[in-house]
């Protein structure tokens, strides 16, 4: 288990939707969080899978995008302990499997969870990014 004990507001766990919003340029709010030199970013290994798959379909250069994510954040693997805690969180927060695995990883790094997915609405330490409509 990754244990980041230094609880600061500058630790952010970036969900797949937030990474895609940044890489595709449709969520400008992500820019400040992702590009700040004050922030430590974390990304789930599952996001590597989701971002690659989605960019292959709707974006471009998925391999380069994955390298970008790796160079700008710390990749968090799924451990047995995380998998079990995520199962508990599925029930506790009524989350889907992947949602729960990623959210539980964010909890374990003591980071603020950044997402554009409304299914995480009202979860502790979570910031939902919304598209600004013109």
């Amino acid at each position, binding site marked *: 288990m990754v244990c980041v004990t*230094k609880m600061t507001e500058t630790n952010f766990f970036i969900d*797949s*939707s937030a990474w*895609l*919003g*940044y*890489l*595709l*340029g*449709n*969520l*400008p709010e*992500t*820019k400040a969080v*992702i*590009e*700040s*030199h*004050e*922030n*430590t970013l974390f990304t789930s290994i599952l996001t590597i899978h*989701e971002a690659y798959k*989605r*960019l292959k*379909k*709707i*974006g*471009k*250069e*998925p391999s*380069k*995008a994955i390298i*970008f994510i790796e*160079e*700008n954040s*710390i990749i968090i693997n799924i451990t047995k302990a995380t998998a079990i805690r995520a199962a508990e969180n*599925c*029930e506790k927060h*009524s*989350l*889907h*499997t*992947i*949602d729960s695995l990623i959210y539980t990883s964010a909890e374990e790094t003591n980071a603020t969870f950044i997402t*554009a*997915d409304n*299914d995480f609405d009202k979860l502790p330490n979570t910031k939902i990014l*919304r*598209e600004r409509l013109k």
Partner: protein
Amino acid sequence: METSTIQVEKPTKDLLNELKHTFGSKTYDEVIQTLVKRKTESGFGKFAKKKISVKEMMDGLRDKDDRN
């Protein structure tokens, strides 16, 4: 802030010393923090083929058929 001791190999310590000088850091802790927080050039919007909405982006991103 509470501190703790970590072991690194000699070449790593030499590298940290070098980076301490390069970054103008006062401590090894500062060097490590700088390395962890280091960012590349902006990648904002660089992987888009065309402009799409967030809704379009989210469609099919994650399989959500297994809610409890």
